[in-house]
C-alpha cells in the first residue's frame, strides 16, 4: 500500500469514528465521550492499526527513514497517532455548539502543538540521537535548573498570594544577593600565592555557609527596602499602579547595582569541593546526615517544643533555630569522620573485586561515581530542602498561619490582632531569602554573575509560578521543576526531531510558549483553583 492510500484510509477511518463518538449521547444530550478524549482514542486506534498493518507487511516505514529496530515500531505508531488524533478531535467536536472563529483558531493551535510535541518526540526517539545516559543528564540538569526556578517562583507566588501584585523586581532581588556574595566568594578563593587564604578550598563548607548568608541577607535587605519605599505607600492604590512601580523598581535596582559593581560579567570562583561527579561515599554521607537531621527534628519538636513553649511562651522560634544549628554543627563536625566510617563499613560489607578496581581506577567502594555531578546534586537537594522548610513554616507556624489569614482577608486578620504590615514584610523576607539562596546556586552552576542576570531567570520563574497557579505554594515548586525539565529536555526532544538546527538555542522559546499555552488553555495554572469558585 502506498503512503497516499494509507493516509487516505486513516483520514476516512478517523473521521468516521469521530462522527460515531459525536453521536453517542447521554440521555441529557451531552456526549458520552468529550471531543478531546475521543481524539485520543481515535489516535491510539489508528496508531495500533497502522502498526498492525505495518507488521503484517504493508509497511510504510519509508515515511521516516528508520533503520533502528525500534524505529519502525515507534514510527508506525506515531504516524497513525498523528493522523488519527487531530482528525478524530475535529470529527468528534460537536459543531452544533457555538463554534466561533476563536474556537477554530484554538483548535488549530492545539493540534499544531500536539503535532510538534508528538511528532518531534517520536522522530527524536525513533532515530536515537542521544543515549539513555545523555537523556538522563538532560533530565538532571533540568531538575537542577528547575529547583532554582522554583525557589525564585516561590517569591512571586508568596507576594502575589498576599498582595495580589506581581513583584517584577524579584529577579533583581535574586541578582543583588548573588552579585554581592560574589565579592565574598572571590576574596575567599584567593590563593595563598596572591596573599589570600584560599579558604574556599581549605574549608569549603564554612565558606559556602558564609557566601549563602551574605547573599540571603543582601537579598532580604533589598526586598524589605523595596517593600517599604516602593510598595507600601501604594497599598491602597489601584492594582496597575504597584505593577508599574515594580517594573520601574526593577530597572532602578539593575542600574544601581551596575553602578556599584560595574557592568562587566564576573566569573564566579570554582568551588573545588563541588567539582566532578557524585561518589557513592558522598551520597551515603548525605543519607546519614539527612537521618541525623530528621532525628534531631523529631526529637526537638516532640520533646523540646512543648516544654519550651510552656516555660517560655515567646520562644516559638527557638526549636527551628536549635534544629538548624545542630544540623549545621553535625555537617561541619561529623562529615569527614562519618564519611570514613561509612566507606570502610561499605568496603567490609561489599568488598571491591580487584578487576573492577583496576577497570574503574578506584580503590574503595566509596569512590564509585554516580551519574550526577556534585554541584547538581547539591542544587537539587538544597532547593528541595529549602522548599520543604518554607512549606513547613507556612503550614505549621504561627507566622505562617497569620500569612495565610492575611492572604484571605486583611481586615479580619487585623481584627484577630495580626499586624498586617509586619506579616507582609515577613512575606517579602521569606521570598527574598529563597531568592538569595537561589542566586548562589545559580552562580555555582552557571559560574557567572552580572547586573542583568536577574532578568531572564526572573521571567522564567514568573512563568513557573503562573504555570503552577500563581498564589499557590506547591504549584510554584511543581511549576519550577516542570519548566526546568521541559526547557532542558524540550529542545532535543521536540525540536531536533523536526530537523530544526541548533535547537538548544530555542529553549527560551519553549519556556515562553508554555506561558502562552497555560494562559490560553488553563489560566488558573496546574494546581490553581478556578477563580470563579475560589470565593465560595
Amino acid at each position, binding site marked *: 500500500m502506498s503512503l497516499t492510500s494509507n493516509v487516505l484510509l486513516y483520514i476516512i477511518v478517523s473521521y468516521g469514528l469521530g462522527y460515531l463518538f459525536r453521536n453517542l449521547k447521554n440521555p441529557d444530550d451531552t456526549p458520552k465521550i468529550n471531543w478531546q478524549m475521543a481524539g485520543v482514542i481515535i489516535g491510539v486506534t489508528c496508531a495500533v492499526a497502522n502498526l498492525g498493518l505495518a507488521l503484517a507487511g504493508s509497511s510504510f516505514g519509508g515515511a521516516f527513514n528508520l533503520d533502528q529496530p525500534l524505529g519502525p515500531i515507534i514510527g508506525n505508531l506515531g504516524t497513525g497517532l498523528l493522523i488519527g488524533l487531530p482528525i478524530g478531535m475535529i470529527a468528534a467536536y460537536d459543531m452544533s455548539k457555538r463554534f466561533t472563529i476563536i474556537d477554530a483558531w484554538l483548535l488549530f493551535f492545539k493540534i499544531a502543538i500536539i503535532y510538534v510535541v508528538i511528532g518531534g518526540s517520536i522522530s527524536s526517539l525513533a532515530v536515537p540521537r542521544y543515549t539513555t545516559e545523555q537523556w538522563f543528564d538532560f533530565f538532571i540538569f533540568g531538575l537542577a535548573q528547575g529547583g532554582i526556578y522554583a525557589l525564585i517562583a516561590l517569591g512571586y507566588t508568596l507576594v502575589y498570594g498576599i498582595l495580589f501584585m506581581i513583584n517584577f523586581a524579584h529577579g533583581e532581588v535574586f541578582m543583588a544577593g548573588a552579585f554581592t556574595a560574589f565579592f565574598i566568594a572571590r576574596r575567599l578563593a584567593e590563593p595563598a600565592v596572591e596573599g589570600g587564604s584560599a579558604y574556599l578550598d581549605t574549608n569549603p563548607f564554612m565558606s559556602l555557609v558564609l557566601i549563602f548568608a551574605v547573599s540571603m541577607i543582601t537579598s532580604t535587605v533589598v526586598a524589605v527596602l523595596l517593600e517599604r519605599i516602593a510598595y507600601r505607600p501604594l497599598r491602597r492604590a489601584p492594582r496597575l499602579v504597584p505593577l508599574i512601580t515594580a517594573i520601574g523598581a526593577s530597572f532602578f535596582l539593575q542600574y544601581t547595582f551596575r553602578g556599584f559593581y560595574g557592568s562587566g560579567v564576573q566569573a564566579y570562583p570554582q568551588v573545588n569541593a563541588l567539582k566532578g561527579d557524585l561518589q557513592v561515599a558522598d551520597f551515603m554521607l548525605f543519607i546519614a546526615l539527612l537521618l541525623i537531621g530528621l532525628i534531631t527534628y523529631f526529637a526537638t519538636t516532640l520533646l523540646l517544643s*512543648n516544654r519550651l*513553649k*510552656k516555660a517560655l*511562651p*515567646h520562644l*516559638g522560634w527557638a526549636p527551628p533555630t536549635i534544629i538548624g544549628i545542630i544540623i549545621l554543627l553535625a555537617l561541619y563536625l561529623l562529615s569527614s569522620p562519618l564519611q570514613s566510617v561509612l566507606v570502610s563499613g561499605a568496603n567490609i560489607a561489599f568488598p571491591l573485586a580487584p578487576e573492577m578496581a583496576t577497570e574503574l581506577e578506584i580503590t574503595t567502594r566509596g569512590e564509585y561515581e554516580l551519574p550526577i555531578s556534585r554541584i547538581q546534586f547539591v542544587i537539587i537537594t538544597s532547593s528541595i530542602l529549602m522548599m520543604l522548610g518554607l512549606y513547613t513554616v507556612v503550614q505549621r507556624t*504561627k507566622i505562617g*498561619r*497569620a500569612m*495565610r*489569614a492575611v492572604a*484571605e*482577608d486583611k*481586615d*479580619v*486578620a*487585623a*481584627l*484577630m*490582632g*495580626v*499586624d*498586617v504590615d509586619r506579616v507582609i514584610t515577613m512575606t517579602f523576607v521569606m521570598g527574598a531569602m529563597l531568592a538569595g539562596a537561589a542566586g548562589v546556586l545559580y552562580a555555582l552552576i552557571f559560574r557567572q554573575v552580572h547586573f542583568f542576570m536577574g532578568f531572564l531567570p526572573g521571567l522564567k520563574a514568573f512563568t513557573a509560578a503562573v504555570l503552577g497557579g500563581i498564589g499557590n505554594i506547591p504549584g510554584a515548586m511543581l511549576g519550577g521543576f516542570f519548566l526546568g525539565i521541559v526547557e532542558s529536555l524540550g529542545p532535543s526532544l521536540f525540536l531536533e526531531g523536526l530537523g530544526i538546527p541548533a535547537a538548544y538555542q530555542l529553549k527560551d522559546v519553549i519556556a515562553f510558549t508554555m506561558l502562552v499555552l497555560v494562559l490560553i488553555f488553563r489560566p488558573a495554572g496546574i494546581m490553581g483553583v478556578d477563580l470563579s469558585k475560589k470565593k*465560595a
Partner: protein
Amino acid sequence: MSLLEIKDVHSYYGAIHALKGITLSVDEGEIVTLIGANGAGKSTTLKTISGIVRPRHGAVVLAGEDLSNVATHDIVTKGISQVPEGRGVFARLTVLENLEMGAYIHNDNQQLADDLARVFDIFPRLKERYKQAAGTLSGGEQQMLAMGRALMARPKVLLLDEPSMGLAPLLVKNIFETIITINNEGTTILLVEQNARMALEIATRGYVIQTGEIVLEDDAKALQSNEMVQKAYLGID
C-alpha cells in the same frame, strides 16, 4: 462607669458622612443591642469601635482608656473582639486554624487548650469538624466558628454584627441562645441586628439608629412596646 463608651463619634467613608455623632455606652455584663435598617450605620459603628474605620471626631473609650490612637491590631489586645458581618471566616484555613487565629494575641499553650475546650463545649459541632476547611462549613456552622474564634481572644466585650444574617429560623434561635450562654459566662455583648424582635428579646438595653444617628435609647422591654419601634422594626401596626 461604663465598660465601653462611644462619645459623639463621626465617621466617614470618603465623602459620605456615615455616623453623625453616635453616643452609646455598654455596662459590664450587659447585652446591648443596636437595631436599625439597612445602611443606617450599624456595621460602621462596630467597625469604628474595632478600628477598621477611624472616627474623624469623637472617641471610643474602653474601661477609661481612649482607643482613638490604638492600632487596629492592638485593639483586640485591649479586650474588644468582633464577629464581622458575613462571618469573615478564613475559608481555606481549617476550623482549628481559624480558632487558633482567634487566639493570635495569646502565647500561652495551656490557656489555648483551655479556651479551645471552652469553645468546643459551647459549639460541639466545631469539635466534630475541626480538621475541615472552614469554607466547607454550612452558614450556621460558619457563624458558630466566627463566634468561637472571637471568644478565643478572651474578650471583655464581644461585638456581634448581624449573627442571624442568612440563617434558617431554627438556627437563629440556636445562635441567640448561645449568645445568652456566652453572656452568662461573663462576656459583655454589643449586638447589631436587623432582626429586632429576637435582639430585643435577649437584650437588656437597646439603641435605635437611623441614617447615622441614634434616635431612641431605652430598656429592651420598653423598646418592645414603643409604638415607633413596633411600626418600623417589629412589623406591628
